[in-house]
């Protein structure tokens, strides 16, 4: 049975065979606005993160999973109001950090600063408005750009706290 580690090992070997340097790796995933895709999205980002940065700790990978889960859930719940639409997820590496981008073409955010306040939410009920709090706590360089009626884009970074050695540097 092939494991993630096995696949990563094969990739490293192929990279070696083809001779470095190579272009910065990225993954772009597009999926319909369905809540069942949130798990896939955060798992995919976690695998990419662990694959590219050996020095991410388990806690850091957990934080990346939470932040991705929040951004994708926001796109589905707030951007599209649980309705139809497409969510785009882009994961890449930049200056020794993982970069995660989540985009939707949903209703957008009228006031991004308001949305950032804990307990402010446009979907009351069981949603607590904590999503952006987690994103800001667990990630760095968080930028949210939104145009009402057009959509929202969340871009966030995270570098391993423990040394800057990444597998790409080996």
């Amino acid at each position, binding site marked *: 049975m092939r494991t993630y580690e096995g696949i990563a090992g094969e990739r490293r070997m192929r990279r070696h065979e083809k001779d470095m340097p190579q272009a910065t790796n990225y993954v772009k995933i597009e999926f319909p606005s369905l*809540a069942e895709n949130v*798990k896939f999205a955060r798992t995919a980002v976690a695998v990419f993160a662990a694959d590219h940065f050996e020095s991410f700790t388990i806690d850091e990978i*957990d934080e990346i999973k*939470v932040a991705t*889960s929040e951004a994708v*859930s926001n796109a589905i719940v707030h951007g599209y109001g649980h309705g139809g639409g497409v969510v785009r997820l882009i994961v890449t590496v930049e200056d020794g950090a993982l970069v995660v981008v989540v985009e939707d073409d949903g209703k957008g955010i009228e006031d991004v600063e308001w949305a950032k306040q804990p307990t402010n939410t446009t979907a009351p009920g069981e*949603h*607590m408005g904590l*999503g952006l709090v987690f994103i800001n706590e667990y990630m760095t360089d968080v930028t949210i750009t939104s145009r009402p009626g057009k959509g929202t884009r969340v871009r966030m970074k995270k570098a391993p706290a423990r040394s800057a050695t990444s597998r790409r540097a080996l």
Partner: protein
Amino acid sequence: MSVSAKRLGRTLLVRLDGELDVHSSEPFKKTVMHAFASDRRLCNVVLLMHGVTFVDSSGVGAILARYRDAAARGGRLAVVGLQVPVRRVFELSGMLKILPVYESEGEALAHL
């Protein structure tokens, strides 16, 4: 995510396994709501979370809503067996200040 529940007097024991997010919190929510609707005496909830490996703000929201449902019936909600990532999210969201957390089912039942 798998959800199973059993009644013990006025307490509903709910065992959760897997990852609790916007999608998987639905069966959890329905399980508690159906049990509460079918038995008026039920008022407490004990969440057995040893098998929960991930929770985000949607999962926190779902648990907090069940906490309020229990409180509205004069009962309480307690959680048992928090794994590290779950405990960290609970801490950051302020849940640890609200929810009683226990190490074992027996301990939780003794305190309700």
